[in-house]
């Protein structure tokens, strides 16, 4: 589904990603772990197409198409969804209107008619119930005055609404208490099918107890230095990242 080849990216001439290779197939869950400043969130933003990052080398292929020159919204239309680490507050736009616009603009790009209002409401109701969201949130301004946990839950609600092919969860566990973490993870798991994929970006192993990865990759200083199964996450939890740094030096 997604193939990243030798990806280099910089911000303001500072190279942050230094040659990433990653392949994610439909039905898989990948996790990217790494210490602060290793480039995890940059990788998420570059895949989503954020303009402030300059891709200097490499390719990002989504379903056999190079998307590295595509606009952010075009990538979303291709089925890429980024659950933000810090969702922006947008006073004056309700969660419901935001979702209606997002879904209908995406449908328009795919040559489809607007979703009928009744179907939209039905879907909003169903997905918000799945994430145990208070109905009141739907008419509130997007993220305005939401707690950290409510913002993250709202991100996953949006994911449920958009039904992306590839969902990138950027530090979705930060700011969540244990109950919210369970609800959000259950939500993500329910949305998993053999046709979509999830890329979890996290600092801690905690989230991976709930969203169990098929592959774990360790990002250090802009490169994936180790890949393995879910047991790698446990090892990192127990031993931290230092042993990897030592291992790298000896190589």
């Amino acid at each position, binding site marked *: 589904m997604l193939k990243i080849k030798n990806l280099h990216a910089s911000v303001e001439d500072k190279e942050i990603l230094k040659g990433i290779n990653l392949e994610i197939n439909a039905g898989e869950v990948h996790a990217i772990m790494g210490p602060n400043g290793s480039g995890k969130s940059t990788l998420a933003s570059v895949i*989503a*197409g*954020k*303009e*402030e990052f300059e891709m200097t080398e490499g390719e990002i292929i989504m379903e056999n198409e190079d998307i590295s020159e595509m*606009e*952010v*919204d075009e*990538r*979303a*239309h291709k089925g890429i*969804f*980024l659950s*933000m680490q810090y*969702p*922006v507050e*947008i*006073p*004056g*736009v309700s969660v*419901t*209107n*935001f979702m*209606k*616009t*997002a*879904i*209908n*603009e*995406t449908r328009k*790009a795919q040559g489809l008619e*607007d979703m009928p209002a009744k179907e939209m409401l039905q879907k909003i109701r169903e997905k918000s119930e799945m994430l145990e969201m208070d109905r009141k949130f739907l008419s509130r*301004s997007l993220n305005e005055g939401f707690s950290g946990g409510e913002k993250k839950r709202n991100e996953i609600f*949006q994911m449920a609404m*958009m039904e992306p092919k590839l969902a990138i969860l950027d530090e979705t566990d930060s700011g969540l208490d244990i109950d919210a973490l369970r609800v959000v993870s259950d939500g993500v798991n329910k949305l998993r099918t053999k046709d979509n994929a999830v890329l979890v970006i996290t600092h801690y192993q905690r989230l991976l107890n709930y969203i169990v990865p098929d592959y774990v990759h360790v990002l250090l200083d802009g490169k994936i230095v180790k890949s393995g199964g879910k047991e790698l996450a446990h090892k990192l939890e127990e031993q931290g990242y230092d042993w990897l740094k030592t291992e790298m030096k000896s190589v």
Partner: protein
Amino acid sequence: MSLKDKLISSFFAFEEQVDVGSDIHTIRNKALKNFEQKGFPTRKDEAWKYTSLNSILKEDYSIFPKKESTIEYRDVKKYLIHDIDAYTIVFIDGIYSSHLSQTTHDKIDACLMSSALDKPKYKDIMEKYFNKIAPSDDSLNSLNTAFSREGAFIYILKNTVADKPIQVLNLSTGNEAALMLQPRNLIVVGENSHVQIIERHQSLTENPVFTNSVTEIFAEKRAMVDYYKIQNDNISASLIDNTYVEQKDESNCSVHTFSFGGKLTRNNLNFYQKGEHIDSTMKGVTIIEGKQHVDHNTLVHHAQPNCESHQDYKGIYDDKAVGVFNGKVYVEKEAQKINAYQSNNNILVSDKATINSKPQLEIFADDVQCSHGCTIGQLDEEALFYLKSRGIPAKEARALLMYAFANNVLESVKIPELKKRINKLIANKLNVNLGFDL
């Protein structure tokens, strides 16, 4: 001949035909003298520093249209909020159109300034209110006063709730190559009475129109007045709107101004509080582009204690558009325990757009709460990325953010159909069709 000279010479022919020998006639003559002395304001006047009338004054305007025009309702229906029941007062090239209007004298008077000026039964009212708050030393008000003839006259006795909104529509046909209009409106709302008024100026062709309008609004004790101004005229039309509001104890008045169209628009909006526990609200949304120019010049005069005023103006400026906000709050020494809020937030969409924002607070009382805030910025890049990452294209994402920015001003519009209409005007102005009803 300059427009000033042309106006002065037209006046002598005009005055012989109207209210000769009456008090009003004396007021007219004094007003003309003041205009003759002062002329049109220039940028040397502090209050006109950022707005020049030069480009408007150079046209050769007809002062009085030569022939009466008729218009079919279906051609102008879209300029009215036609999906609600309302009284309507329509003027075509400054002349009342009975064909398009629905006036009333049943419980409330929603009719014509010309009848109020001419009919003996309104004599006392006119003596009490006509030109009583509009300042006689102001040249534009004087000019309008000298030529006052037609406009809306709305008189609501005490303890009366107007059963439906009143719409005042000023149309110009383009039958004249260029036309100057001077509507004069008088609105008197008695004790405990309520009214909602919608005002709009609309030219039907691209021929230049210059409107110098004066509206006086008197709100007696506990009266409630909601006034909405839709300024979405053609790009060749210019408007100077002079509105004066006098409020008595416990009255509540709001003026919302939606400025999307026109070449040059100047709003002189003045509130005079003459009592206690008064609430005054002024709100505005300005969305302009090209070389459009919109100037909001506001004044709240707090003369008595325990009153409030709220000002909230939002502006979005694209291309080479110019915005001006000059908001003055004056608090007299006696006016203790005042809460006065003023906020002016602006988004500059292009590098060449300009906003001149100038709050002015003159406070002589010592126990008051006055706040003012002004922001000038661009659209938030993080917010744009967020919207785009959900599949919303750049143009729509920008429009959505601009709409969101202006939205809190719309929230206080009390007529739902009007709110819907303004949402539509905003969507048109931003050139978007979003996935929900803007």
